[in-house]
C-alpha cells in the first residue's frame, strides 16, 4: 500500500515510482529571474539544439516578448513585464505577506535596493540586482512602511520552461504511453508513439505542452510566412504575408517540411544531452547563469540561499516557485525565483494536478453509470405494450 500512496499527489520520487532501477539524481532547472537580462539566448539555443521549427515572426506588442507563450515549438519562453512603482509596491507587500506566513521572521522594512532606485529618482531599474556590498547601507536603514526609493519602473524578465512536475498531468493522462518519466525524473514525449490526441495539452496545469500544427503563427495559426508546409492542411501563406516575411527559415528551404506535425511537443530537459552527461542547451547558453541546471536537491538549496539573500538585501518581493514538494503538483523539476505574483508571469498561482481527483472522478462516474442503468431498467418496469 505504501507504493500506491502519493502516486497521484503529494511528495514522492517520480523516477523510482516509474520503476527505474537505475538511480540517477533527479535533475532540474532553477531559473533565477532576478538576474535574467532577457537576451533570449535560451530560446535560441533550445531551438538550435532540439531542431524546433520557427513558429511565427510577429511583433506582439508585449514589451520585448515576441515569442508569446510556451508551446509546441517554443520550449523556452522569456517573459517581459514592465511595471510601475505602485505595482512594485504591491509585489513587495505580497512578498512580505508570504514571508510572514508561518514564521514571524524577516524584517518588515524594504530597502532602496534596486540598481537604479537611488539614481535621482529618474533612473530606470531593471530587475537585475546589484552586488551585495552596494546595498548594505540600505539594508541597515531599518524598518519603514512604504519606501520612497521604489524605482519608477522595473522590468521583469523570466525564462519559462516545462516544469517537469513530480505529478505530471500530461504523463498521467497520455493514453498511448508516449509521454514517459525518464531516469532523471523528467518528462519526455516519444514523438514516434504520440498520435496527437491532445489530451496532455488540456491536462497541463501550466499550459506548457501543445500539439504542433505546422502552420502555426502566434494568434490564429494561419501565418505561415510564405512556407509551403507538407502534411499540414492547405495553409500555404502565399498571400500578403510573403512580402512581410521575405526570408523563409532554413528548414523550409532544405525540405519544406516541419517535423512532428500533429504531435504533442515540449521541453525534454535535453534528454539526449543529459544521457551524455551534458548540460541542457538553454542552461549552457545562459550568459548570466539565470538558468541553473543540476541535481534538484542542490538547486533547491541554491534557490533557498538566493531568496534568503535577496530578502536580506531588501527585496521582500523575491519568492520561490515550485520548490515545495507539498504543493498541488508535488513540487516541480523546474523551479523559479520570482519577483512578483506568479500570475504576473503567466504562471498559475495554485496549480493542482488534475489526476489528484481522478479516483473521486471515477467513483462519481461509476455512480452515474449505475444511475443510468437504473433509469433504463425502471423504464421497462410495469405492464405496457
Amino acid at each position, binding site marked *: 500500500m505504501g507504493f500506491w500512496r502519493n502516486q497521484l499527489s503529494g511528495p514522492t520520487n517520480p523516477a523510482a515510482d516509474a520503476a527505474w532501477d537505475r538511480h540517477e539524481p533527479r535533475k532540474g532547472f532553477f531559473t533565477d529571474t532576478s538576474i535574467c537580462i532577457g537576451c533570449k539566448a535560451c530560446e535560441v539555443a533550445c531551438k538550435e539544439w532540439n531542431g524546433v521549427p520557427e513558429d511565427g515572426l510577429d511583433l*506582439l506588442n508585449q514589451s520585448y516578448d515576441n515569442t508569446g507563450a510556451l508551446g509546441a515549438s517554443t520550449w523556452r519562453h522569456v517573459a517581459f513585464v514592465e511595471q510601475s512603482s505602485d505595482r512594485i509596491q504591491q509585489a513587495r507587500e505580497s512578498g512580505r505577506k508570504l514571508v510572514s506566513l508561518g514564521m514571524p521572521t524577516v524584517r518588515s522594512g524594504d530597502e532602496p535596493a534596486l540598481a537604479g532606485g537611488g539614481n535621482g529618482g529618474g533612473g530606470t531599474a531593471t530587475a537585475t540586482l546589484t552586488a551585495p556590498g552596494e546595498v548594505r547601507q540600505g539594508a541597515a536603514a531599518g524598518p519603514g512602511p512604504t519606501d520612497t526609493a521604489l524605482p519608477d519602473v522595473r522590468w521583469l524578465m523570466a525564462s519559462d520552461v516545462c516544469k517537469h512536475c513530480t505529478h505530471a498531468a500530461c504523463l498521467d493522462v497520455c493514453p498511448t504511453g508516449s509521454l514517459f518519466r525518464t531516469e532523471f525524473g523528467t518528462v519526455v514525449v516519444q514523438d514516434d508513439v504520440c498520435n496527437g490526441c*491532445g489530451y496532455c495539452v*488540456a491536462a497541463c496545469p501550466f499550459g506548457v505542452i501543445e500539439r504542433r500544427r505546422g502552420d502555426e503563427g502566434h494568434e490564429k495559426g494561419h501565418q505561415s510566412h510564405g512556407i509551403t508546409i507538407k502534411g499540414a492542411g492547405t495553409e500555404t501563406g502565399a498571400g500578403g504575408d510573403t512580402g512581410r516575411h521575405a526570408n523563409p527559415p532554413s528548414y523550409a528551404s532544405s525540405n519544406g517540411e516541419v517535423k512532428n506535425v500533429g504531435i504533442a511537443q515540449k521541453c525534454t530537459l535535453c534528454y539526449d544531452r543529459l544521457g551524455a552527461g551534458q548540460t541542457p542547451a538553454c542552461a549552457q547558453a545562459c550568459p548570466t547563469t539565470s538558468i541553473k541546471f543540476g541535481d534538484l536537491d542542490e538547486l533547491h538549496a541554491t534557490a533557498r540561499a538566493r531568496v534568503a539573500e535577496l530578502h536580506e538585501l531588501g527585496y521582500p518581493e523575491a519568492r520561490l516557485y515550485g520548490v515545495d514538494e507539498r504543493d498541488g503538483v508535488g513540487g516541480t523539476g523546474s523551479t523559479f525565483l520570482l519577483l512578483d505574483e506568479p500570475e504576473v508571469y503567466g504562471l498559475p498561482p*495554485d496549480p493542482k494536478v488534475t489526476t489528484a481527483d481522478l479516483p473521486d472522478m471515477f467513483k462519481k*462516474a461509476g455512480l452515474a453509470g449505475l444511475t443510468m442503468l437504473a433509469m*433504463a431498467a425502471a423504464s421497462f418496469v410495469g405492464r405496457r405494450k
Partner: protein
Amino acid sequence: MTTNPFDADRPPELPRRKKRGDPSQAGGQNGGRRRRDESMMVPDVTFDSYYGRHIVKPAPWEKEVAAYLFLGGIAAGSALLGAGGAARGLPALRRMGRIVAVAGAALGGAALAKDLGRPSRALNMMRTVKLTSPMSVGSWILTAFGTFAGGALASEVARPMLEKRGGASGSAGTAITLATKALNVVDPPLTVGSAFFAPPLAAYTAVLLADTATPTWHESYRELPFVFVSSANLAAAGMALVTVPSSQNGPARKLAAVSAVSELVAFERMQDKLGPLLSEPLRTGKAGRLLKASRALTVGGALGAVTLGHNRVAAALSGAALMAASVCTRFGVFEAGMVSAIDPKYTVEPQRERLEKRRAAGIVDDSITTAR
C-alpha cells in the same frame, strides 16, 4: 546619463508621471489592459495576467470531439434500450437499439480518430492500458462496447436470414439449424455485454473532460457524469421515439421523462457547485445559448413524449427535440470549457481564492509559491 554621438537623435524625454493609475483597478478581470498612448514608455498596466493570455491551454479538440460526446451517449443509451427491448419482447425497440448502438459507436470512433493529430496512429490507443488516463480507459470501453454491440447487431441481421432459409433440406438444412442454435446461445451474452459496457461508455466522457486543467470542466467533475448519462438516455429515448412505432415506445417515453428530470436537476446542481465565476461560461455566450436551448428542448421534448407519445407524429417530434437537446448539451459544455481555458481569470481567480482560503485557515505549507 550617457553622452554619445547618437544622443542628439533621441526623442525628447517625456515627463514621468509620479502617480500611476488607481490601485483599485488592479483587480481588473481581464488584466493586461494597456493605455493607448504609445509614447509612454511604461504604459499603465494591470497585471493580473500576462498580457491577458491564457495560462492553461484549451484542448486542441474540434467539434468532432463534441460530436463524439453525443454519439457515444446515444450509442450507450440505445444499447440499453435495445437490451431492454430484447428482454421484454419489443422487437422494434430491440432492432433500433442495436443498430443505433453500433452506428453511434462507429461514427463516434471515426470522429475521434479524425480529430487526432495523426489519425494514422489511431491504433496506438491500444498500445497500453492506463488507468490514470480516462482516454485510455475510454478507448477500451469503446472497443469492448463496439465488440458486443457489433455482435448483437450481427445476430440481429443473421436471424431473419437464417429463418428465411429454414426450410432447406439435407446438409444445408442441418447447418442452418445448427447456426440458429448457436445464435440462440450467443445472442443473450452479446446483449448483456453491450448493456454492461453502455453505462461506462456514457459516463467516462464526463471524466474525460473533467480530468483536465480546463477550469469549468474540472471543477464540475462531481455532477458532470450525471448530466452526461442523463443526456445519453435522453438522446437514446429520442431516437427510439423517432424510429419505433408507438405500440412499442412505452419504455422510451418513460426513459425520456426520468432522464429529463435527472438531467435538469444535475445541471442545476452543477451550476450551483461551480459558483458564479466558473459557471459563467455555461451561462453566457455561445455555450450559454446552446445550454438554454438544450433546457427548453429537454422540457418540451419530455413533456411531448409523456403526454402525446402515443401519437406517432407527436412522438417523433418529441424524440427529435430530445436528440437536439442532447446535442446542445454536449456542444454547450464543450464550448464552455474552451471559454474557461482561454480567459485567464477562470484559472487565476479560483486558484487564488482557494489559496487564500487555505492560508486563512492556517495551512501555509502547501503553496507552490514560498518565501524560502
